[in-house]
């Protein structure tokens, strides 16, 4: 399938390795990946912080850039959540019926990586090899907004060599929440410390998730504590092969 990669501005800038891994997995499965260079940011940060009028041009831009594709895939649950769940609200705010129509046309074609693989393509084994102790944190937006369910776990279970350890209270929010982590830093930190405790209890080497924003928050906390546990995006585990190890 001809798939457009929606990298997200955050991954583009901070986590290029996640983007490379996403391309690798999709190409390995025989998809033709395109990367429209005109893409920038979906507008989530602006929209969720309240700067919603400022987000409208970004919504228009996104729709224009990605409308031509059959499927749009992103390695981020929360940015896909923005597009699928909140773009209609943005279009309503813009009082633009045409934009609303375009958004509703586009939304069902935009997928988070794990849901594209498992739910759209019916694939769970992507031929990955990853000989490590791994625990998985389901991020709130992939879980409750996109309802990806067990798709990421199904993918992880099919990875050869992996030792998957269950995370206690996994569904609890890690405390990231975008600008929440800065505006309400104390509360965010209180939530993070419980998440870190549960991650450390698993004695895993790697904590994975489908969103680098949450992982950066969790990873930043682990690093500060010099805990020795790494955070790795799900796409990178799926991209990993025997030859690479």
């Amino acid at each position: 399938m001809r798939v457009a990669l929606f990298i997200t501005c955050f991954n583009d800038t901070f986590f290029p390795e996640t983007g490379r891994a996403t391309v690798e997995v999709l190409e390995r499965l025989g998809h033709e990946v395109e990367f429209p260079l005109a893409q920038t940011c979906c507008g989530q940060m602006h929209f969720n912080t309240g700067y919603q009028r400022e987000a409208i041009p970004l919504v228009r831009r996104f729709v224009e850039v990605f409308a031509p594709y059959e499927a749009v895939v992103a390695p981020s649950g929360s940015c896909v959540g923005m597009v699928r769940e909140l773009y209609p609200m943005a279009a309503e705010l813009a009082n633009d019926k045409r934009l609303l129509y375009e958004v509703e046309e586009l939304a069902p074609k935009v997928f988070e990586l794990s849901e594209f693989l498992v739910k759209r393509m019916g694939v769970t084994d992507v031929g990955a090899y990853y000989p490590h102790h791994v625990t998985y944190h389901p991020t709130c937006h992939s879980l409750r907004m996109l309802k990806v369910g067990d798709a990421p776990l199904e993918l992880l279970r099919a990875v050869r060599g992996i030792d998957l350890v269950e995370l206690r209270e996994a569904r609890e929010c890690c405390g990231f929440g975008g600008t929440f982590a800065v505006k309400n830093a104390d509360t965010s930190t209180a939530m993070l410390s419980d998440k870190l405790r549960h991650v450390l209890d698993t004695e895993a080497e790697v904590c994975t998730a489908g969103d680098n924003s949450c992982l950066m928050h969790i990873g930043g906390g682990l690093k500060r504590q010099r805990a020795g546990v790494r955070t790795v995006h799900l796409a990178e585990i799926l991209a990993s092969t025997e030859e690479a190890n």
Partner: protein
Amino acid sequence: MTLQRSPDAFSADAGKTPTFEQSAKVSLADTQLRRNLGKATQTIRAKRAAAVEEMPDWERLREAGRALKERVTRHLDEYLLRLEESVTRAGGHVHWARDAEESNRIIAGIAKAHDAEEVVKVKSIATDETKLNEYLEGEGITAHETDLAELIIQLAGETSSHILVPAIHKNRAEIRELFKEKLGARGLSDDPSDLTNAARLYLREKFLKAKVGISGANFAVAETGTVCVVESEGNGRMCTTLPPVLVTLMGIEKVIPAWRDYEVFMQLLPRSSTAERMNPYTSFWTGVSRESGDGPNEFHLVLLDNGRTGVLADERGRQALSCIRCSACLNVCPVYERTGGHAYNSVYPGPIGAILTPQLVGIGKPGPDSLPYASSLCGACYEVCPVKINIPEVLIHLRGRVTRHKQDGGGLKGRLDPENAAMKTMARVFSDRKLYEGAQKAARVGQWPLARDGAIGRLPGRLAGWTESRDLKAIPKQTFREWWKARNGSPENGSA
């Protein structure tokens, strides 16, 4: 347990209400509070999940509850007039109160007309909203709270921190000490049944003496005029039947169309709130007792607006008026679990409070305006809400309203606000590919004084909150798009 006494969002000096961030700092520092809260919310959370699990048609019930409430909000005027007619027909009096002041005057007037110096009350958040107890005190009337938890916080001179378990922030030992001191209960253990007995002895006497009882309402049926109070301790039953005069204060959004609608709500409410299949006491009354002599012979229903009709104008925000006050959203909220209810500085704490309070008191006050931001948008509240209020969506919507209010009404100050300036700049950058790619490079160069070993340990200015507990990943040498261009020989697919 530190006592928090900042002005709440519904008090006269609501403009001085602290922000959530400020108050959360105080609560988070209280380790005893955090332990109490963590334990209580986690227990009730697990119980609720089990109680809901039993219901095969739960999702359909939720949808029915949502639809009924939406119908009420849409035709509120008609249902209220019908309710007034039904209550009057059954021998009750209906009063319309525009705001807290008017409602308090009406209720105090009724009490004075019966020379009541003491009144008994069953838990009512609406009366907390209107600050009825303080008003009555000013008029020389003592109001006795009769819910165990409400009694505890009244005796302690505190404010409620949970809709349903107002004293969730107190543990048994703290309560025993309080009862010893205030009720003179000697030789008291901290066994729950002992504590309850001490309270019961004290309250029985109040019930028998009071001439006027005051209640809130969970629902009122437009079709029949039947008012309903759902409770667990039996004090509600006593308040609404023993005193000869009963006054019920009810927010106008509590009306439901027909008697049969109870079928839906009485299945949704107990399981969501106390995780029970059915709560111990549900009282229904229609007007006054006539021949039977059982129950009050005078009944007043006070219908409170206090900002609610204003909320109706906001089509997205008004779903907050569908709330049936079950408190499930509080119990699952990871923010509430850490900060407790006092940090919200409102009689409505937790996720529902964060969307209801700013709408009721109006956008433009620093304290209430901070509430929609008191959420990581994790969505746990929406998942459990028995009437499917999309709380995260309303939170985001209200953040938009707060921001637009600041931008449009804040004059020069609003426009010069550093966050506003930064957001505007970033929006500009994101809407132009060349600016965006330039900014990526600039950020990589700009971070060098901060980055060490691929991480940033301390950020300047307002971003310092991040690095107090977390390192920040440094920006790598090559962006994804640079890699892509190098790999694919820079094919320009898509327009710039």
